[in-house]
């Protein structure tokens, strides 16, 4: 068993029939593509929801142009085709839930993690291929559950993606909190369970199945970020599962975990267990849900950004033709984020009735966790410094990640300062902050990653002209959409308002809302360019060679598209992942040298 002979023999023959090749497949590359196409579908659904939200905010209660006349009286439209107040809440809740659980986490972790981890560490497949397939086949029904909750009699869940009780818990408090909320609970539980299995799978793969020579300081930063994300997924997502289980018990078995005694519904009847009139129960505490939910959800926002950081590091280093600046501190800051990530969740609850003393503690840890992100930003700048920057499409996305993540991170500091958070909490300032970090950060990293690894995934190249056009439109309209939200936040416009025009002090905000909506429509439209470019190039794109970007990591040493069993022989790794323009590269006459390339004697 010396030179990994066992691995070589274990090559299962590639399945031939359509079912085992594409549907019930164990191959990590096929599973990642299954996740990719499902995440694209939910990206379109989530995007449409966002367009409806922006329509309602710009032209409150005016009939929606096309969809309104088609679906008047159904879903979230009233008879005249305008969006109803409870319909608006369903839009915001499902926009948030679908984008986070069904688009971003799968796109960042399941698509890139699944595809890249085995290839970058030199393994044939993930540690547990059956478990990998099981993760996808838990994620898909969860998606179907979430999507079908729109068509329920009383509509989808309406308590925000955070689902704070008693609004989400007491079914009579709002129409969506009946069966819609139960569908939401089940679908989030299922997608949480699938992401726990994914975390366990990836963590075992990275820790245990690295090729010989792939020591911890030669691991590419994409895989490092997937490792830290997998730790968060394996240890924090179960807490979300039990929060969902507790509220499920509340709604179905009429327990009263989050229902305080003496709670009344809107027609002044006392409600007990399960929010039902006449039940005794009570004695629960709504703040417990917030504590348990945010104990998961802060690690979840790091699950959303860490893979993006890994992708951006890869893109920036490759297209500056220069090793990543300070590799060890980059890994160190990710480890610090893992350490601090579990003890910061209270900064979501500064004004929620959590005691002020706790606020002080969480302010300290929140201020500290801003530091690793700052260190990473400066290291990326260090990588760009004195590099030879190729402004290809993936690089432009990588630079957009860097520039937008800076704004997202800096606007986070305002919230960490608790007195300022008193004013801007639950306003559009918060929405601007997390859209800058999630959209400006992770989505640009995902677009960059999809362009960058398209040749390896499909064996073809995407069209560059469309790529530049899509980047430029998205970059400009993204800023025009989300930067003015800082102004809305400073003007005190609260989140999740069907319209802000009811408030006299918010009148000056309405023109900003209209500007945001118009740029949001253009932003939505410009994504069609990307989707067309992606699917068109899968079929019609020019053939791609094995290493079109002259990159170093192991996945570029195998032909494109990556063959079924990845490596003919498990490679041996001799150097770090970012050895661009070094002496070793000069010895082989190029400005890069692959990780497993033996130097000529």
């Amino acid at each position, binding site marked *: 068993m010396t030179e990994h002979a066992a691995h070589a023999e274990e090559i299962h023959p590639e399945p031939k029939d359509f079912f085992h090749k594409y549907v019930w497949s164990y191959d990590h590359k096929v599973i990642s593509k299954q996740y990719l196409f499902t995440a694209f579908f939910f990206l379109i659904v989530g995007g449409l929801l966002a367009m409806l939200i922006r329509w309602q905010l710009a032209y409150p209660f005016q009939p929606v142009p096309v969809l309104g006349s088609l679906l008047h009286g159904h879903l979230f439209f009233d008879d005249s085709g305008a969006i109803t107040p409870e319909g608006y809440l369903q839009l915001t809740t499902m926009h948030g839930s679908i984008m986070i659980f069904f688009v971003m986490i799968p796109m960042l972790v399941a698509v890139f993690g699944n595809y890249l981890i085995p290839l970058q560490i030199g393994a044939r497949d993930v540690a547990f291929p059956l478990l990998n397939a099981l993760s996808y086949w838990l994620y898909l029904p969860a998606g179907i559950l979430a999507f079908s909750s729109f068509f329920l009699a009383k509509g989808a869940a309406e308590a925000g993606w955070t689902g704070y009780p008693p609004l989400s818990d007491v079914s009579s408090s709002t129409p969506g909190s009946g069966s819609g909320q139960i569908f939401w609970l089940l679908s989030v539980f299922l997608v949480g369970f699938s992401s726990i299995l994914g975390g366990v799978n990836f963590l075992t793969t990275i*820790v245990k199945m690295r090729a010989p020579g792939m020591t911890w300081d030669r691991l590419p930063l994409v895989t490092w970020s997937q490792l830290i994300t997998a730790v968060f997924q394996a*240890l924090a997502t179960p807490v979300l599962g039990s929060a969902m289980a507790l509220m499920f018990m509340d709604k179905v078995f009429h327990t009263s975990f989050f229902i305080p005694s003496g709670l009344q519904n809107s027609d002044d009847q006392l409600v007990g267990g399960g929010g039902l009139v006449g039940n005794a129960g009570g004695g629960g505490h709504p703040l417990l849900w917030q*504590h348990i939910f945010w104990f998961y959800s802060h690690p979840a926002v790091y699950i959303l950004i860490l893979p993006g950081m890994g992708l951006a590091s890869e893109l920036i280093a490759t297209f500056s033709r220069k090793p990543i600046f300070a590799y060890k501190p980059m890994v160190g800051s990710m480890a610090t984020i893992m350490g601090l990530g579990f003890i910061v969740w209270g900064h979501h609850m500064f004004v929620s009735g959590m005691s002020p*003393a706790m606020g002080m503690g969480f302010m300290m840890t929140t201020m500290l966790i801003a530091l690793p992100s700052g260190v990473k930003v400066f290291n990326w700048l260090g990588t760009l410094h004195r590099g030879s920057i190729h402004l290809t499409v993936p690089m432009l996305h990588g630079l957009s990640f860097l520039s937008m993540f800076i704004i997202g991170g800096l606007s986070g500091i305002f919230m960490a300062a608790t007195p300022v958070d008193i004013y801007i909490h639950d306003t559009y300032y918060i929405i601007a902050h997390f859209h800058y970090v999630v959209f400006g950060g992770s989505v640009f990293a995902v677009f960059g990653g999809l362009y960058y690894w398209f040749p390896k995934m499909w064996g073809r190249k995407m069209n560059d002209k469309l790529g530049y056009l899509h980047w430029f439109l998205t970059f400009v309209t993204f800023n025009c959409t989300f930067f003015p939200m800082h102004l809305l936040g400073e003007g005190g416009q609260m989140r999740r308002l069907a319209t802000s025009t009811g408030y006299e002090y918010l009148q000056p905000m309405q023109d900003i809302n209209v500007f945001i909506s118009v740029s949001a429509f253009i932003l939505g439209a410009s994504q069609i360019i990307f989707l067309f470019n992606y699917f068109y190039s899968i079929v019609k794109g020019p053939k791609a060679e094995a290493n079109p970007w002259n990159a170093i990591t192991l996945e570029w040493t195998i032909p494109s598209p990556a063959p079924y069993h990845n490596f003919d022989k498990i490679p041996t790794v001799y150097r770090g992942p970012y050895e661009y323009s070094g002496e070793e590269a000069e010895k082989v006459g190029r400005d890069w040298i692959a990780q497993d390339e033996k130097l000529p004697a």
Partner: protein
Amino acid sequence: MNSAITNKLNIFITLLVITAVQIGLSYADFLAPVGHIIAALLLAASETILVGLFFMGLKNDDRLLRTTALFPFVLFCIMNGALVLDVLIFMKH
């Protein structure tokens, strides 16, 4: 081989004894209510360590598995510590 088996039997018997002690102690009323809680939790923790080390094989596993086994209990204390601090101690009802 037989030392392994007798080892397993010894552990098994100690577990039975600890459970019996736990139940017995709970009926002893010389301990204050707080004492009951501490005694019960200590015995439960000792049972967990015994099962973990011997029945689950942590005894001859590397440091990685031991940290994996320990880390959730650290998070258990972080979450419960923060919740108890906030809801019970700092909150003026």
